[in-house]
């Protein structure tokens, strides 16, 4: 085995790229730190140390658990409701055509505008976090599912019919696998937006969670904590998105 060939393999290359991106990120951060000074943000080293210290406290995990709980409930609700509505609108062509422009319109409206409304309806706490998370994510799930169901190749359906498949068999063996890659793309975008939604909601209308402790640190202007919490949030969000992205890529390659 030649060393150079291993280094040139695509897998090694992408790992190298990721490492390089990480280095670039830290370098950029350090430059910002040099410009802005410690009144604005902590240095990468200090923030990482502080973040590790935070990870050792039970207080942090309590808040992380609260965020995770709201996030998971939101994801389950939006996945079930979004898929159901999306499949329905995809199969009913006319109804789909009626609602599609409204949904795309809603998609481009800043959902944060509805935040006060959500708080007025659901109060402060878990319920409104979940509601806001769902609101952020469900529309993309509906839109992607709808277009996925519509785009299943007619020849697959015809093949199913010639094989005398029942409706359930058609759904399970043809419609779902055929539409799955695109549905998953919608889910991926929806899930990521929901995480942002839950964190945003915690920042303004909650008394616990990662968004709340970040807002708390902001209001007390504890620069070190702000930097570390921002770092942790970014790492978590990027990690989640990376995992979903990899799954998405595999699904699209399979079909």
């Amino acid at each position, binding site marked *: 085995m030649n060393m150079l060939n291993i280094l040139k393999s695509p897998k090694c290359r992408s790992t190298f790229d990721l490492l390089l991106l990480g280095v670039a990120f830290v370098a950029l951060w350090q430059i910002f730190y040099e410009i802005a000074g410690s009144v604005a943000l902590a240095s990468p080293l200090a923030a990482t140390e502080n973040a590790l210290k935070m990870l050792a406290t039970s207080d942090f995990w309590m808040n992380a658990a609260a965020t995770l709980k709201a996030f998971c409930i939101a994801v389950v609700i939006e996945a079930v409701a979004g898929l159901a509505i999306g499949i329905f609108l995809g199969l009913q062509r006319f109804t789909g055509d009626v609602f599609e422009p409204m949904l795309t319109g809603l998609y481009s*409206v800043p959902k944060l505008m509805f935040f006060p409304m959500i708080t007025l309806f659901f109060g402060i706490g878990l319920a409104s976090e979940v509601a806001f998370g769902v609101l952020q994510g469900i529309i993309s799930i509906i839109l992607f599912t709808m277009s996925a169901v519509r785009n299943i190749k007619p020849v697959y359906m015809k093949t199913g019919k010639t094989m005398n498949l029942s409706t359930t068999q058609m759904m399970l063996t043809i419609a779902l696998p055929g539409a799955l890659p695109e549905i998953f793309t919608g889910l991926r975008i929806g899930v990521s937006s929901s995480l942002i939604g839950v964190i945003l909601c915690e920042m303004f209308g909650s008394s616990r969670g990662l968004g709340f402790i970040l807002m708390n640190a902001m209001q007390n202007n504890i620069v070190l904590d702000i930097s570390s919490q921002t770092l942790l949030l970014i790492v978590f969000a990027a990690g989640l998105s990376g995992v979903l992205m990899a799954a998405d890529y595999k699904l699209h390659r399979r079909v």
Partner: protein
Amino acid sequence: MNRLMRARLLVVAAILVVLEFACRTGLISSYSLIPPSEMVVAMIEMLRSGELTAEILQTVLAVFISVAAAVVVGILVAIVLHSMPRLRQAIEPVLVTYYSIPIFVFYPLFIVLFGLNDVPKVVIGFMLAVVTMIASTLNGLDRVPRVLRKTGRVLHLSRMETIREVVLPSAALSVFNGVKLAIAHAFVGVLAAEFILSTGGLGYQIAYAFHDFDNRKMYGIMLLLLIIVAVVNAFLMGWERYIRQRRGLS
């Protein structure tokens, strides 16, 4: 087509009637939602009195600057990335995961860096808008027909001429789509920034009314924002259709 439009109008009308009915009869308390008709009245009152004019201008101006900067920077970055495939491949993960990161968490940092004025919200709007602009432009550059590039080379066009005469016109539709998305994202960024912490703008007014329990004002401004976004969207969609038709695409 006509049947479709009728059905859409019917759905919207039905939703409005149900909401109006639920609010008037007290099914939904007036602390949560005010009747749609009252929102319209509140909005018109505020527009007439002119108390919102400065705020509207401030928000629209901030969105405009962010979009303009995002379009220019986005196209330039995309052109550079497109000409260096290796760099592009390395940076792809950033473009893909970018929108899953809550950019708003950087807002306090920007306030410290730039001060409590209009700069931080423009920066947030720009940061949200620029990446979709880069991605759309890259997408467009990928689709420039090879034969046109070759023709350009045959005619000995310089680099800048190639970009101006060949690349940008073929990529125009994707770029336009990018602008559309950039506007939506910039709106989200600017409004959210105003909502979090700022000294003015429509987002600030919503937050202010919200903390004041002034539901009439809050829903009036929300309606106004919905209308602004809808008008901008309709305008862009009409323009896009015009471009497509002129090129015989649909």
